[in-house]
């Protein structure tokens, strides 16, 4: 290359090889995470061939031995400059009013290589600008350079071709079908990878200029995938989040929830009602004469200590719930507060929507990469696109490769369904029996209605589990988790070589479990005598067996049995630690305001056990403190000094006491993390394609560097190995007792959706607008039987409640199942959760067409 010898693996792309060798070849359409298409022709270089040298696109050309390439010859330069001039010919050059101005590859290229003056004197192409192609994305067609990055992303990566090229030649434009706007949950990625200002995000429009932005690299805590991202702010306002390309995790992509939930952090001016989930809690509150009033930290801590001290006098009198959205350090600090200060084992980060945490840890673990490399993926989980969106992207990309198979235990509609080699419908309450039928020879029970051929094919694909990764999660919030737990245990026993990626969904649920915010587990995955989980604590509170509860976050809005929870809290002494307002505060005696995402330092652990840093970008509002500080001060008020005055103290303590790599990950804030309990070294960062990362330092390597603040100078400690939990330690999983089915009824499935009623969505108006109204989804044949079609009305009776819902036809719902979205509200404001029977193995509902 340019007269120098360069080493490369055969088949590598010339553009990548050149970049490694220090030669940057200009480009627009090439994106390192998508198949090259070689259309913009910006990357033309001279390649010697049998018939002399020709111009070839470096992004498409694969290298081979002895290839002779010139990237800087007059011919190559002229071709590149020619392409740039052509791109600019019809470009509006409205950089001063363009969101992309200052971080625009086209602008950068033009400034470095472009002509000073235009030779184009003709009338430019004109379009109406900008037009909304979806709720979150605007398109300015005049600025588009037809690189097809966005349309390829939609088709190739997201698999939901909601936008495509329309027209031909120089009239090509990116377009959705007018009747079907661009509502993909991944739409923001197209804005990020657009190399010009053609696609802009509605929430970011005119919000800032890139040179005013400051950024840190961090980890998203909206779900358990833990996408790496850069958080940008202008002054003390968060302005934008962009995906960072992490090789083992998110490949640069984000879902729109993680990307656009900034208002929920920034809060809303003028909202001071602490019960409003859109409000931030900015000062300590205590209940006085029945009302919550602002107070000082001193008084609030004293009141909390008073309440909790009284309760801890009684055996089993106090417990802690919540904390799956905190950092590892906070979770660890709270776990110590619970165990060492409050003296309780009744600790549970999950709000009754997860799986037995000990079984989660005991299943042989797999990383996302393992799942993507697996010969066979078996899914027994909700729709990953709704629950863990970027995991869906990764799995989709992997399953499209030849020789990969997906065996789907289809509990409901899933975006992965289209890729399944074998799909076996599973009704609520049946998962463990279906798994038994898959693994055992002999006839399957007739009531499971298994297709023999599918069962046979699935069994053959699973083999002894070699090369199989099971992606497992809570499949139905109206079903006893024991059903899935039993199924998973059976799979682990029968397929000893299979590994499991447990896809629990809350932001740092895995980290919370590891840190000991779970019944039966002490920090660092140490088994302990069982305590009460959340439903058990709520029951104990209702019965008076437990007096007080320390709530981390919003309990009421996150449990299935909201009336039950409210009744429990009504009787109890309640201390709430939270950053957001919400219904739980109606029952609080003391509220301690906490910092939330993008305001705190620490580490989080994703679903595969990978520990990465979260880094604050803005200061928490008002008097809000980081959780670690709250935990330490509360402990002090209760008479114990935990010696954790900072996040670093907590991380160091955690790492040295348990072997959990919290401190190491914290210190290495820009690394791609360490998988807890796995000996593998942290993954080295790779240089990023500047085009894949528009940002204030777009042409540099992406990293945290100096912004890491004072943590950077500390050294990692030598830690003992992390404890390991095995299934053998736990004994056999109990077999749930499934009640007989009512032939005329339906089994209820309640499944979470991405745009839900949680604070991240309700607090961010652009996302709140996307929440769909409550609806009952049924299999087409069931709807036909009821004589209904999409839009029809259905009266549903369950758990003693009656709710009228409109129906939707959905072939992904198994026959005999009625599905609703967790937390959805009807037009009259009723919550569908009420249909679920808490504590039952499965909920059966009766329906009546309206």
């Amino acid at each position, binding site marked *: 290359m340019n007269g120098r010898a360069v080493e490369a693996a055969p088949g590598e792309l010339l553009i990548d090889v050149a970049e490694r060798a220090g030669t940057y070849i200009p480009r627009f359409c090439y994106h390192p995470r998508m198949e090259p298409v070689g259309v913009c022709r910006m990357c033309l270089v001279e390649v010697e061939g049998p018939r002399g040298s020709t111009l070839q696109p470096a992004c498409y050309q694969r290298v081979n031995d002895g290839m002779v390439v010139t990237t800087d010859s007059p011919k190559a330069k002229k071709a590149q400059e020619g392409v740039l001039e052509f791109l600019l010919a019809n470009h509006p050059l409205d950089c001063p009013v363009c969101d992309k101005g200052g971080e625009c590859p086209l602008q950068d290229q033009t400034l470095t290589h472009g002509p000073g003056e235009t030779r184009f004197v003709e009338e430019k192409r004109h379009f109406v600008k900008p037009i909304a192609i979806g709720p979150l994305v605007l398109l300015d067609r005049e600025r588009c350079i037809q690189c097809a990055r966005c349309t390829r992303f939609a088709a190739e990566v997201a698999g*939901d*071709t909601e936008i*495509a*090229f329309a027209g031909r030649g120089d009239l090509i434009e990116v*377009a959705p*079908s007018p*009747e079907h706007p661009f509502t993909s949950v991944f739409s923001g990625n197209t804005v990020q990878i657009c190399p010009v200002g053609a696609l802009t995000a509605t929430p970011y429009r005119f919000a800032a200029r890139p040179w005013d932005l400051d950024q840190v690299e961090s980890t998203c805590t909206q779900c358990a995938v833990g996408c790496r991202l850069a958080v940008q702010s202008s002054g003390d306002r968060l302005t934008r989040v962009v995906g960072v390309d992490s090789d083992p995790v998110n490949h640069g992509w984000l879902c729109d929830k993680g990307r656009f939930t900034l208002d929920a952090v920034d809060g809303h001016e003028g909202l001071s009602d602490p019960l409003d989930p859109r409000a931030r809690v900015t000062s300590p509150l205590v209940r006085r004469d029945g009302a919550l009033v602002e107070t000082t930290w001193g008084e609030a801590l004293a009141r909390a200590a008073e309440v909790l001290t009284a309760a801890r006098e009684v055996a089993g009198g106090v417990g802690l719930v919540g904390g799956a959205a905190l950092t590892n350090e906070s979770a660890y600090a709270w776990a110590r507060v619970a165990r060492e200060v409050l003296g309780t084992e009744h600790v549970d980060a999950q709000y009754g929507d997860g799986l037995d945490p000990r079984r989660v840890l005991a299943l042989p673990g797999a990383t996302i990469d393992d799942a993507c490399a697996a010969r066979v993926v078996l899914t027994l989980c909700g729709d990953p696109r709704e629950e863990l969106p970027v995991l869906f992207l990764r799995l989709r990309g992997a399953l499209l490769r030849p020789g990969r198979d997906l065996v789907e235990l289809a509990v409901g509609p899933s975006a992965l369904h289209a890729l399944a080699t074998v799909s076996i419908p599973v009704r609520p309450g049946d998962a463990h029996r279906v798994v038994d039928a898959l693994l055992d020879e002999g006839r399957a029970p007739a009531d499971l209605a298994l297709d023999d051929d599918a069962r046979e094919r699935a069994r053959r694909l699973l083999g002894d589990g070699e090369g199989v990764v099971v992606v497992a999660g809570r499949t139905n919030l109206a079903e006893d988790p024991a059903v899935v737990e039993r199924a998973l245990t059976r799979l682990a026993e029968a397929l000893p070589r299979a590994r499991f990626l447990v896809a629990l969904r809350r932001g740092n649920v895995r980290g919370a479990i590891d840190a000991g915010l779970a019944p039966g587990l002490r920090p660092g995955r140490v088994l302990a005598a069982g305590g009460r989980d959340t439903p058990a604590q709520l029951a104990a509170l209702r019965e008076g067996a437990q007096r007080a509860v320390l709530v981390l976050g919003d309990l009421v809005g996150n449990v299935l049995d909201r009336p039950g929870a409210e009744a429990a809290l009504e009787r109890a002494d309640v201390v709430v630690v939270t950053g957001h307002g919400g219904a739980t505060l109606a029952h609080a005696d003391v509220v301690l305001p906490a910092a939330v995402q993008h305001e705190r330092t620490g580490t989080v652990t994703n679903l595969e056990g990978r520990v990465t840093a979260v880094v604050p970008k803005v200061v928490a509002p008002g008097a809000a403190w980081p959780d670690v500080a709250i935990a330490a001060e509360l402990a002090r008020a209760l008479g114990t000094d935990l010696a954790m005055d900072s996040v670093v103290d907590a991380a160091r303590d955690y790492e040295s006491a348990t072997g959990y790599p919290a401190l190491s990950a914290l210190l290495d804030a820009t690394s791609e993390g360490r998988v807890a309990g796995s000996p593998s070294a942290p993954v080295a960062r790779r240089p990023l394609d500047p085009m894949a990362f528009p940002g204030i330092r777009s042409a540099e390597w992406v990293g945290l560097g100096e912004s890491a603040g004072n943590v950077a100078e500390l050294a990692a400690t030598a830690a003992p190995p992390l404890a390991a939990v095995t299934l053998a330690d736990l004994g056999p999983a109990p077999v749930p007792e499934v009640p007989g089915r009512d032939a005329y009824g339906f089994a209820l499935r309640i499944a979470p959706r991405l745009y839900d009623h949680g604070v991240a969505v309700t607090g961010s108006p652009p996302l709140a607008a996307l929440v769909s109204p409550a609806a009952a989804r049924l299999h087409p044949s069931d709807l036909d039987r009821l004589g209904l079609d999409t839009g029809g009305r259905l009266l549903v009776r369950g758990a003693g409640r009656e709710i009228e819902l409109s129906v939707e036809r959905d072939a992904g719902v198994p026959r005999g199942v009625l599905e609703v979205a967790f937390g959805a509200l009807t037009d009259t404001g009723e919550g569908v959760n009420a249909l679920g029977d808490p504590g039952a193995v499965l909920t059966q509902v009766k329906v009546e067409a309206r």
Partner: protein
Amino acid sequence: MSHLRVDLRQRAEELVALYPRPRSAMLALLHLIQEQDGYVSPEGIDEVAELTGTTPADVRGTASFYDMFHLEPVGRYVVGVCTNIACLFAGGEELLAHASRRLDCAVGSTTDDGLFTLEETECLADCGHAPCVTVNHRYVRTTTPEAFDAMIEEVRQGRRDHEIPDHGTLVRVRRNGGLRVPDEVIVAERAAAKAARARRLEGAG
């Protein structure tokens, strides 16, 4: 519910079955939508997406690549006048200007009565009869303004309907059976044919 009429829906399914992959029937299906709706209607797009296993955005994007597909309603008769090189030399531009005056409609638009849409076309491969004029993709070979006017009059009175059907180039294309043969059959046939040929040629030789 199918948006296509029952008979067209059946033809659509036959078209899909002709190809190894359903998407291949895309262009033919879009012609069919035009045959029914006169243009590529939104409902038609949804149905083609369903038939081909694609999305509406994809169907619309594909349709819009091809000049013969109209994404907006057009007149009952689409009149095309070619002005490409051979027709240019034969007065195509002048004939197009004449047509525009005569129909009282700008190039690219539709007459007020909804009867005619006038288009300037690229070469229609009938340059022996330049300048070339088509109505609903039937060559009418009227190369002079006078002949053009007479033709328009006849069309208006419905006297050319036997040779100029409504939209949909495939209106009169009918296939007798011969639907797609599965791969397995083809593989088996190939093996059998090879053996038979060997025997036959051996016997002959």
